[in-house]
């Protein structure tokens, strides 16, 4: 094993862990801010570190600290299996975390004669892995609910369990259809397949190639991750908080974070399988590498524009109203952040000028492209997460029977049909 491969593996692992874990507070913050903005409120925007609020994202870190420092409390009626009661959230959380680890963040790096996968777990059966590990997560929910010795928790656990059983089938079948289409179980290969075009002009994204399967996949993943409108397992209007009624402090936080990691993984899977992964449409990795200077030029033009828009927006919105006189310091924050952004932009501009017009370093170009693809991936991931959140604050929760009806009566037959049609077409095209 070469140094490069070790470096890339370590980098990918760290990147995977960061993307999975660091997005939790960001997602929590996004969830709160978007919810409040949709409802014409402000949401958390006060917590700060030395006057730096970052729009309130610090609040999430404060919450993490709070949850970590909270008293570890067990309800007195939980007599047996406390260890499992405590372990259950860990199962859920780690399953969700592991499922995220097979997502490719950028195209395979070709350094020398080695092909290095930018994947936390560099495997070529990512789809199978995701399906296998994703199924384990619900066990934590079920055990946690059961061991709470609480009827609400039990109901929540039973709902979560049976919902997973119901939606695993359409999920698996739609994935299968995609697997048949792409003819691979490797996520990276799927992304590469999608970098082509379709009818000459459409990007060959999964959602366009497999629209029905794609929608089924999205719906099934919403259900699998317990997001609205499928939050029947929590159902606070009926069963308090579902399976996590009796869980406190870090135990609760594990469930809570597991949910966000699962959402994050689901977003990653959706964009990887249906929205071209780390690719920009019409632009494949080879194209970027061969026409690097024009790519660099494009970045040099677009980046300052974007940064300018962001700074302008920040100047306008990161202020206090006239009626709020005492909560100052936001102007300072804006100034600091703006200068940081500008410096960063200038640096990137410089790098691209150097790479695009003054040298012909293939390795550097490859790395730059990989970093760019990671950026694209992260942006897509966040957009899809925001989509998840907007859906949550738009659609009311389904009733439990409606959830089951949808799963069994509509999604399952449709997924089967989709698979059949796909198989026929694939066989027809290839023969």
């Amino acid at each position, binding site marked *: 094993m070469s140094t490069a491969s070790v470096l890339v593996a370590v980098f990918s692992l760290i990147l995977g862990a960061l993307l999975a874990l660091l997005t939790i507070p960001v997602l929590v913050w996004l969830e709160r801010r*978007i919810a*409040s*903005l*949709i*409802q*014409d*409120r*402000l949401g958390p925007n006060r917590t700060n570190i030395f006057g730096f609020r970052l729009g309130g994202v610090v609040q999430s870190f404060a919450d993490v600290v709070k949850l970590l420092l909270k008293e570890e409390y067990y309800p007195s009626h939980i007599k047996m299996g406390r260890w499992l009661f405590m372990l259950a959230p860990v199962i859920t959380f780690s399953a969700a975390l592991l499922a995220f680890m097979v997502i490719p963040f950028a195209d395979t790096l070709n350094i020398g004669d080695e092909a290095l996968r930018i994947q936390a777990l560099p495997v070529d059966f990512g789809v199978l892995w995701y399906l296998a590990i994703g199924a384990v997560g619900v066990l934590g929910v079920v055990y946690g609910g059961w061991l709470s010795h609480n009827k609400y928790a039990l109901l929540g656990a039973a709902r979560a369990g049976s919902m997973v059983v119901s939606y695993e089938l359409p999920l698996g079948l739609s994935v299968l259809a995609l697997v048949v289409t792409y003819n691979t179980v490797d996520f990276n290969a799927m992304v590469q397949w999608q970098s082509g075009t379709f009818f000459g002009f459409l990007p060959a994204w999964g959602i366009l190639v497999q629209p029905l399967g794609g*929608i089924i996949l999205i719906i099934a993943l919403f259900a699998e991750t317990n997001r609205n409108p499928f939050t029947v397992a929590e159902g606070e209007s009926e069963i308090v908080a579902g399976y996590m009624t009796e869980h406190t402090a870090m135990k609760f936080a594990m469930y809570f974070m597991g949910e966000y990691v699962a959402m994050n993984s689901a977003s990653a899977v959706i964009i990887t399988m249906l929205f071209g992964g780390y690719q920009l449409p019409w632009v494949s990795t080879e194209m970027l590498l061969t026409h690097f200077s024009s790519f660099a030029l494009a970045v040099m033009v677009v980046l300052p524009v974007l940064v300018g828009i962001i700074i302008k*927006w920040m100047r*306008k*919105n990161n*202020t*206090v*109203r006239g*009626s*709020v*006189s*005492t*909560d100052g310091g936001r102007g300072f924050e804006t100034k600091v952040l703006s200068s940081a952004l500008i410096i960063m932009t200038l640096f990137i501009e410089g790098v691209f000028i150097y790479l695009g017009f003054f040298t012909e370093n293939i390795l550097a170009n490859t790395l730059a492209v990989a970093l760019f693809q990671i950026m694209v991936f992260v942006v897509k991931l966040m957009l899809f997460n925001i989509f998840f959140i*907007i*859906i949550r*604050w*738009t*659609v009311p929760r389904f009733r439990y029977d409606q959830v089951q009806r949808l799963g069994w009566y509509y999604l399952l037959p449709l997924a089967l049909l989709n698979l059949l049609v796909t198989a026929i077409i694939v066989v027809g095209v290839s023969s």
Partner: protein
Amino acid sequence: MSQKIKTVKRYGERFQDKLYLPAIYDGVKVTFKHLFDNVTDMNAVDTLEYPEEQPKDISERYRGLHRLTHREDGSEACVACFMCATACPSNCIFIEAEEREDGVDEKRPKSFFIDTLECVFCGYCVEACPCDAIRMDTGIFSLTGNSREDFVMGKEQLLSHKGAFGEENSRART
């Protein structure tokens, strides 16, 4: 009679409704519009930034902290009839009565405590008071203290609260 009954077609019968996705799309359109508007101008949001911005629209019917009203001569209007304590659903009013010596009335509270931590601010005491001696029109909605004892309001404290809606109303109506 029968002509007046209008049969409204049940919503959700059409294929489009059953598909549900167009409905979700419509919903997202609404929520996204709000999101977009608010993101572009966050300060237009109606939320008060509370500790700095104090609410200005507390209505006269708002049930704030309690107070005891005064008579014309400035003494307490309360006659310690215990009606408030009787009506109180959380049993948080503690009164001790004594003979009133000044000849204005017969009876007055020797001590009058409201445990505001137990209080549910239902306003029954105000409804029950036959002398208009207790009111919740102080407009005080935020109570702070360092100990539980700080939240137990005594007679003097309750008498010292001012009504928020005009001083001329602070005399007990008889």
